[in-house]
Every structure is written in C-alpha cells, then in structure tokens.
C-alpha cells in the first residue's frame, strides 16, 4: 500500500475536542471498471480504517467501493490526556499500513 498523511493540531489541552485529518494514497479499485480488453478489473480497496489513542479505540471506518480514491477521513477526539495515536488501514488483501503520531498535550 502507500503513503499516509496525518494532520493533528500542534498541541491540545485535556478536554479539547480536536480534529484529526487523515489521507492515504490508494486507487480504491471498485471492481466495476473494465480494462481495454473488456475484462473486469477486480476490486481492490482499503476496507477498514481504525484510530486508537493511548491504546483505546477512538474511531473506526468500514469503507466500501463508494469511497473515493485516496481516501480522506476526518474525525474528532476529546483529549483524555497525553498519548500517541495509532492509525491502521487494511485492504482487501489483508495488507496493513500503520502510522503512529504523538499528540502534544499541554
């Protein structure tokens, strides 16, 4: 799979509700298209995204082919304290991309 980009606020206080923006490169092949020979291009998408913070689950997304290529997802978290995010993307083949990012908590 490919590169993921994460955007977090530079810092946050306990109790702040912060926005987390994520982006990953992926063609998200739907399984509906045909190639030049008329053969169906098989489906191949990222079907799951999970975000945990300090080991606790924050947000999960089950994605279907209706999600656009290069899936962008933004969600929110209420800061419980200092910690590290762990983001995981899983595709149809079971391949995983994992990114970690610390949140600066004042």
């Amino acid at each position: 799979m490919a590169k993921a980009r994460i955007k977090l606020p530079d810092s946050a206080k306990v109790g702040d509700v912060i926005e987390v923006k994520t982006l990953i490169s992926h063609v998200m092949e739907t399984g509906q298209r045909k190639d030049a020979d008329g053969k169906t291009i098989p489906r191949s998408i990222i079907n799951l995204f999970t975000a945990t913070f300090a080991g606790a689950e924050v947000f999960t997304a089950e994605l279907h082919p209706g999600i656009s290529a290069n899936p962008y997802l933004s969600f929110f978290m209420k800061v419980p304290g200092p910690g590290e995010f762990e983001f995981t993307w899983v595709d149809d083949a079971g391949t995983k991309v994992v990114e970690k990012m610390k949140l600066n908590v004042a």
Partner: protein
Amino acid sequence: MRLAVHSSRLSRRDFALGAGAGIAVLGLPFAVVGQDPSQGWEQAVKKVLGDAKPIEGKVLIDMPEIAENGNTVPFTISVDSPMSETDRVKVIHIIATANPQPGVAVFRFSPLSGKATVAGRMRLARTQDVIGIAELSDGRFLTSKRNVKVTIGGCGG
C-alpha cells in the same frame, strides 16, 4: 450555448446521458449494468434498521448541491450529540441510493469521540439521494437524506 464540436467531448456527453459502457470511458468506476441499483438501497436501509422506525431529520449531511465530479464528492456527516458515555452516537451509516453498491461506509464512534462528525469523499454514479442513518446508544435511530446532483463536468453544465 455553443455545443462542443470536438468529437470526443460530444461522445462523452452522449455516454453520460446513457448508462453503462460510456461511464468506463469517463473514468468513473461505475458501470450501471446488471441489477437495478435502485432496489439495493432499500435493502441496505432495512439491514441497518430492522423493524425500527427512525426519527427523521437529525442527521446533518453536508454535501454540495451539485457535484462537478462524481468520482470525488466531499461529505461531512454529523449528529448533534453530547457524546457522553450514556448519551452518544455509536454508528453512522452512509447509503447512496443509486450507486451500484448502496452502502458507502460505516463509521463507528467511541466515548472518546467528542463529536459525532466525520468527513470524507465519496463516489456518486449519478444524481441521487444520499442517506445517513445514526445509531444512538439508547437504541434509537436517526435518519436524513440529501439529494446531490451529479454533472459529468465538461460541457459547462
């Protein structure tokens, strides 16, 4: 408006007005062939709701009125909720009523979520209603829908 004389543009327009094969030419990943997609969405909704009667109007679906490019249509879906342990949104489902597969995504929130809001980008095969269904922690369902017009860009609408 002057019709584009360039032949590939004209034929794109014809295909856009039709269905099926032409959509592959445009690069949209959908071919509207086979099963009538309009039947699938009701089943998708029933799968989520079961026999429950949802409360209408409390899911905010923020999407453009007119989507220039059906390949990537931005959405923000949110429900006004305290998101406390005892009163929160657990899940939000997005269903596109005229896509080959009506289920677009399922978003699961947690007590850490803070807000029941999620943004992303979806594919829309053509003009259609997009439905949002929220499951609350007390077992109730909320639902709203939003119509999005999809132009295939090109001829200036």
